[in-house]
């Protein structure tokens, strides 16, 4: 029994932290989030060159051939640094769907191009209601010659405005199917988003025709592929939230040690120190839950889906509590635009609400407990 990291994994974390400390500072975040599309070509190039996009993609598909533990390590670090790049959508949403789909054809080509940093891919699954399920799906794909004609509106698609390819879930007859759709074929509108570094978009597909070669996985199996991918997505999000929570904890402990009121550091007041202890407990629990679930997914253990759902819940709790109480303990200054805390608060909120919130994932835990 060993719940520790290997030397290679520690080295991966260390080097990621160094690079991010240099290239993904709060100043970089503010600069990038204020641009038209919150995208910095040079930063993205760095991410690609470091192999961070392909860390969990098999070597045969152009990746580093490592696993979800390594991917989680990178996401914990990019969470800490609130990396302002379309990284989460690539590795937490697109990659898991592509990995879960049957091998061959466009799936393989997309994985390789994604891993190399050449093609940016995002997932266009949820619609107006924001629900992650098959019954609410209204986007349809009908046979059109050898290909498919896709019509519908995907809402809340992360980073679609800078994507080259969209993975679209559409209703095909009685079932659902996943398609790779060139982003240029869709009408994409950026939506002003709480986390301005990670923009959600509306994606309208108005009778877009794609060839049969653009079906991902088996026809009619779209939702079940997505469901499997959601386990990995859940853990990826939890890893990012762990990083966010840890960074806010570190910042707030520092502040509480230095800031004095009534002649004492405010960290000596138990109302504050007890919250910080609670913050540590939730962060450590999120960390433990995340890495166990990542390992379980890599090993394919029977409890992997339950572990993934538990990690998601733990991550949400840690992110919420840390960012909320982090602001509280900082007092007035924590509420300012100038202070970086709101950037973390908003990213944690994005992570909480985008993939199905705590209620949704607790329900998933309960259904898996029912056995």
């Amino acid at each position, binding site marked *: 029994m060993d719940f520790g990291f290997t030397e290679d994994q520690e080295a991966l974390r260390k080097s990621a932290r160094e690079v991010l400390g240099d290239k993904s500072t709060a100043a970089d975040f503010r600069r990038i989030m204020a641009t038209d599309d919150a995208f910095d070509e040079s930063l993205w190039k760095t991410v690609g060159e470091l192999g961070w996009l392909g860390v969990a993609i098999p070597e045969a598909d152009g990746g580093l051939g490592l696993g979800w533990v390594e991917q989680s390590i990178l996401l914990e670090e990019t969470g800490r640094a609130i990396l302002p790049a379309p990284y989460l959508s690539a590795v937490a949403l697109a990659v898991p769907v592509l990995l879960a789909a049957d091998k061959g054809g466009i799936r393989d080509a997309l994985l390789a191009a994604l891993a190399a940093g050449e093609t940016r891919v995002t997932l266009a699954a949820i619609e107006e209601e924001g629900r992650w399920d098959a019954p609410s799906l209204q986007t349809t794909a009908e046979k059109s010659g050898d290909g498919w004609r896709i019509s519908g509106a995907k809402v809340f698609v992360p980073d679609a405005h800078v994507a080259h390819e969209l993975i679209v879930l559409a209703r095909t007859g009685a079932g659902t199917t996943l398609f790779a759709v060139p982003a240029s074929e869709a009408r994409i509108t950026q939506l002003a988003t709480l986390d301005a570094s990670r923009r959600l978009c509306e994606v309208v597909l108005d009778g877009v025709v794609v060839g049969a070669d653009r079906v991902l996985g088996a026809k009619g199996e779209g939702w079940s592929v997505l469901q499997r991918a959601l386990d990995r997505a859940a853990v990826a999000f939890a890893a990012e939230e762990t990083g966010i929570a840890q960074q806010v904890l570190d910042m707030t402990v520092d502040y509480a040690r230095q800031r004095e009121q009534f002649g004492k550091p405010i960290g*000596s007041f*138990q109302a504050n*120190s*007890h919250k910080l*202890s609670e913050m540590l407990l939730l962060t*450590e629990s999120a960390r433990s839950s995340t890495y166990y679930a990542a390992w379980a997914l890599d090993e394919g253990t029977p409890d992997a889906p339950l572990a993934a759902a*538990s990690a998601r819940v733990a991550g949400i709790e840690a992110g919420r509590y840390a960012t909320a109480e982090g602001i509280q303990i900082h007092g007035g200054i924590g509420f300012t635009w100038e202070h970086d805390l709101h950037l973390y608060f908003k990213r944690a909120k994005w992570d909480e609400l985008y993939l199905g919130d705590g209620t949704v994932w607790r329900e998933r835990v*309960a259904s898996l407990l029912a056995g």
Partner: protein
Amino acid sequence: MDFRDTPAEGAFRKEVREWFEANVPTGVSREITDEPGQIDALREWQRTLHAAGWAGLSWPKEYGGRGASLIEQVIFSQEFARAKAPPMLNVIGIGMAGPTIIAHGTEAQKQRHLDKILSGDEIWCQGFSEPGAGSDLASLRTTAITDGDSFVVNGQKVWTTLGHLADWCILLVRTDPTAPKHAGITYLLVDMHTPGVEVRPLRQMTGQAEFNETFFTDVRVPRENVIGEINDGWRVAMTTLLHERGTLGFALATQAEMMLRDAVDMAKRVQRNGKPAFEDPVVRQKLAQAHVEISALRLNNYRALTSVMRTGVPGPEGSLGKLLWSESGKRLLEAVMEIAGPAGLVSSGAEHAVDGGRWQYLHLRSRAYSIEAGTSEILRNIIAERVLGLPKHK
């Protein structure tokens, strides 16, 4: 990273599990109560464990233990809880007094006491807390004054588990009232049958008298019953508390898992709005939350164990274990009582009680989880000051 047992660990787990399957006595309550016959049954169980070599698993072989590794101790704790076995009656002897004597005692003390601890022939209790010294244990006031080759002990201890059954007591006394409070304490071994020792049951809100008050009036204790040096008792006590907390967390985490399984099972049986309670979305939310917390408890323990195995030093995760166990346990039992509804109000033995009133008992008992063995408030202070490095609150 690997959560599977190694072949050797798997073999050990199988051995332990099969032994428990064959030997756990049925019909013996898992909670220490004053039901007639229960104590005799527990003494018998202790003897059975000892005869099979399971008592004092972590003790060095030269003192009658198995010298089990940390991971073996963890496996044993987990399987003990999984088997829902009755507790080891001499848990304080085996978990606290014994290791203290092994680490700090003289040869004569080891010869005199260790064997009888393992066999359960002598049951031990712990005399630490006082009415005026709970969280602030170092302010204890039970005195021990030298008189010839003895100490004369006067004072009062409280929350003495098994005081009414105990033969011996590990007692913290003040031997130097002029020294700073941590520096004037001595660790004594006291024969509970000595004249002047009086044990009175302390009834808890559960209705049971699991604990006692113990009064010491001019109790004579031979000088050779000092563990370590006179006035060095605080250091001795701290090393035993640390030692004890090690694998206890795994047993508690496994117990919590078993309790949650039982709670899910209960929710499937109990009706709510014409359907099994487990189909109610709010019930599902609460039980799912409990699962997330209880599995985090186990996983945090594993990280702490790995840390100790790699570095010899427990990481921050260790301090968090007791805090999470106590708070998540209370929450789960509150949720279970809600599921039970009015039936949850019906006590043990009466018609319409849920699961024989077990949940009501556990819910009441759980109010002490966040108080005993370190209150949640003290633990948060410890975490804040020693783990996060925040300035002291004083």
